C-alpha cells in the first residue's frame, strides 16, 4: 500500500473491502490469518467463512440502503 491510512470501501449490497494495514482479530483478540493484501469482510452475516465474505450475500439477497448523495465520479 501507499503508506496512507487503511481504507474501507462499503460495497453496495456486499462486503466491506479493506485495503491497507489493518489487523483483523477474533473476539478474543487472536489474529485471524489473512491470505491476501485486500480482504472483504462479510457484513450480511451469511458467509460460511467468517469474518471473510464468500459471496453468500448474493444468495441471500442482501441489500444495503441506497446512498442519497450522488455517487462519487
Amino acid at each position, binding site marked *: 500500500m501507499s503508506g496512507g491510512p487503511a481504507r474501507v470501501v462499503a460495497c453496495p449490497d456486499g462486503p466491506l*473491502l479493506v485495503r491497507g494495514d489493518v489487523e483483523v482479530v477474533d473476539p478474543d483478540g487472536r489474529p485471524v490469518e489473512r491470505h491476501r493484501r485486500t*480482504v472483504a469482510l462479510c457484513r450480511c452475516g451469511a458467509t*460460511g467463512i467468517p469474518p471473510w465474505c464468500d459471496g453468500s450475500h448474493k444468495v441471500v439477497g442482501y441489500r444495503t440502503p441506497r446512498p442519497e448523495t450522488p455517487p462519487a465520479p
Partner: protein
Amino acid sequence: MTMPLPAPRGPASAALLDLLTTAPADADVTGLDRAVGDALVATEDVLRDEDLQLTLLCLYELHYGGLTGVDDAWEWSPALLGVRARIEAVHEAALRDRVPVPEVPDDAGAGDVAETLFALAAEDTGPGLSTFVARRATLEQVRELLAHRSLYHLKEADPHTWAIPRLQGRPKAALVEVQSDEYGGGDPERMHSALFARTMRALGLDDRPGAYLDHVPALTLASLNSMSLFGLHRRLRGAVAGHLAAFEMTSSVPNRLYGNGFRRLGFDEDATLYFDEHVEADAVHEQIAGRDLAGALAAQEPEVRDDVLFGAAACLALDTWVAQAQVGAWSAGRSSLLHPLPDLVPAALALPDGRAVPDGTAVPAGAPVRVGAPVPA
C-alpha cells in the same frame, strides 16, 4: 513450459501443424490460408468447429508458453497473424450475434455499470454444473471437469493480463490488484495456476500444459480462445475487463460447491485448496473487477462501455454453453470429452489406510478415496 503439438482435427489444423514444424523463413502459408478459408466457408458453427477452434488455440498458444518444437519466430509471422485474423473475425461475429447484451443509460457511472454486471451475473443460473458436481458427479466426471478446465486454469489469469498496458488510472490499478492475487501475491506456490496443478495431481492427472488437449472439445477451446481474443486486441479492452468481472462474479459460490463435491468424493485439502482459495479470493475480486475495473473503465472510456457489457455477457454465455454440454453428457451417461480419459493408474490410487485399490476394482460409491502420486508420464 511448452505445450506438445496436438493431433489435428481437420484440414485447417493439419495444415497449421505441418507448417509449424518448418522454419518460418522458408515456409509457404498458401495451403494453410486456403484450408482455413474453406473451413470458414463450410462451418455451420465456428464456436463448435473442432478444426477451427483447435487451429485458433494453437495460433494463440504461440503468444503464451509456445508449442514444443515450434520456432518462436512464428509468433510474429505476418502470414500467420493474417490467418488468425480471418478466424477471429468469424469467431467474434458469432459471439456478437448470439450473445444478448444489456443496455445502460448513456450517463451511467461506474457504480451503475457494476450493478448492471452484478444483476446480469445473478440472472445467469446456468445448467447447474456446480450443483451437479456437489451432489452427483462421479470420480470420473470430476476428472473430466479438471481436464476441460486445465486448458485455461493452468494459465489462469494470463489472458486478462494482456490488458494491463492498455488501461490507465483506476481500471489499471484494479486489474493489477486482482492479477497480483491471481499470481499468488509473490508466492509461486499460491499462484492459482499452481493450486490448480496441485488439484490435478491429487486426482492422478498429468498437470503439464496441454496434456489433455486432444480430449477437450471445441466449445471448451472456444471459451479460452474468446479470452485470448479479448486480451490480445487493444480494441477489445472493454470486453476483457467485462469478461474478468463476470468471471469473478460467478466464481465464489460455484467454487464452494465444487469443493463440496470433491470432499464428498473423499478428497482432502490437497485437492480442494484450489476451490477454497477461490471462494475467498473471488469474493474480493468480484468487487474490484466489477466496480474499479469494469465499471470505472466504462465510465472513463464511454466508447468501450458497450464492449464491457459484451465481454461480461460473452463470458456468461460461453460458461453456460460449456456447462450445458458437460451436464448433458454426464446426465446421459456419456463422457463430456472427445475421448474418455485414460484410466487412473491403479498404483496411484490408494485407500486411506495406504492399501492400493486392487487392480480393476471400482472404488465403492461414497468410499473415501485418496489419490496419491501423479500418473507417471
